[in-house]
């Protein structure tokens, strides 16, 4: 339970980067963005779907995305209703580059710290080191 909560919080903290990355491939509506996020992460990233829309709206409000309303294609699954499609703006592309760079530095730093951690000594090795003159 603790792992799931911690994982969810980490995901929320990087949601902007993930959404900008997905939309870098081309304009998409919210449902398609969520599906792409799930698919590209191999099912790892599976947020409650309703939490993605506020993030998309916030990115739009801040000028990193622009949205247009289009008529959806009437298919077996689509209903031909109006749908909001998001696309990266120039500012969004700049922000994505910056976020990617920030993430690369962060993950490099974390990796370096994890690599430097030695396994904890066993009780036997502690006793052996204690009796040495």
């Amino acid at each position, binding site marked *: 339970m603790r792992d799931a909560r911690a994982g969810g919080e980490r995901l929320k903290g990087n949601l902007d980067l993930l959404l900008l990355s997905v939309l870098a491939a081309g304009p998409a*509506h*919210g*449902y398609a963005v969520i599906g792409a996020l799930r698919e590209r992460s191999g099912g790892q990233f599976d947020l*409650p*779907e*309703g*939490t993605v*829309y*506020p*993030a998309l*709206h*916030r990115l739009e*409000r*801040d*000028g990193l995305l*622009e949205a247009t*309303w289009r008529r*959806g294609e009437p298919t*077996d*699954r*689509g*209903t031909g*209703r*109006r*749908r*909001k499609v998001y696309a990266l703006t120039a500012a969004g592309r700049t922000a994505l580059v910056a976020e990617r760079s920030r993430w690369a530095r962060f993950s490099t730093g974390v990796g370096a710290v994890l690599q430097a951690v030695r396994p904890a000594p066993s009780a036997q090795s502690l006793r052996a080191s204690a009796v040495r003159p």
Partner: protein
Amino acid sequence: MTDPVEEYLDALADASRLRGRRLRHALAEVEDHLAESRAAHVAAGLGEDEAGRRAVADFGPVAEVAAGLDRASAPPLDRLLREAMRTFTLLGAVGLLAIGLSGLVAAAGAAAFGKAFVAGDVAGVTYTAARCADFQEYHPSRTCELAALRHHYDEVVGYRLDAGALGLVVLGGWLMAVRPWRRRSRPVPRALPEGFATTVGAALFGAAALVLLPAGVLELAFTGSRTGAGNAMSAGVVAAAAFAGFAASLWRSLRSRPA
């Protein structure tokens, strides 16, 4: 039996603080998502109702989604402050222009009824010799009273016209600063509520008119002379006209809002 998706949308509309177009667009987007989600669950073998319930469950609790949508719609603080600064700068320019206009009205009143109408002292006021010398230095006149009248007239009319000139400069600066912002191809959502500027303008000028007009009229009525009554009345007339302008604009914007 009610449709779970319709129930969810109704609950979301009740829970959210969004109104008007923002609410309509948010609900349309959520409805589109839930329709696709339900269709996917039906394609996977679920019945319509069960698919709808699953779609709603996958979307998340109404309270959390509504809170998230409300937060995302709130304008960021820096945009709010910038828009507030622009609005109050414009209102300040209009205020200075109104003061300048009241100076013109005061000058017209002086031309019609004499300078004492806008700048005369109340009966019984006297000045020391030093004060008279001050008045005479800048307004040489036959008597101290006449020099004082000319001095007060300059203050009433001259300072107001100076304020009006400053208002023109501020308005010009505002127009130059705002025009490049308005020319952006992508409109920036309003941070302050619609009608904020007209409401503040109507309130301020309305309050000024309520104080100044009766003050001038009462002075005229009870002192039985025209000494200085035009000072308050000239300002009150312009304040009343500005209030009427702001109130008319506010009324038009209120009437054009969707019910």
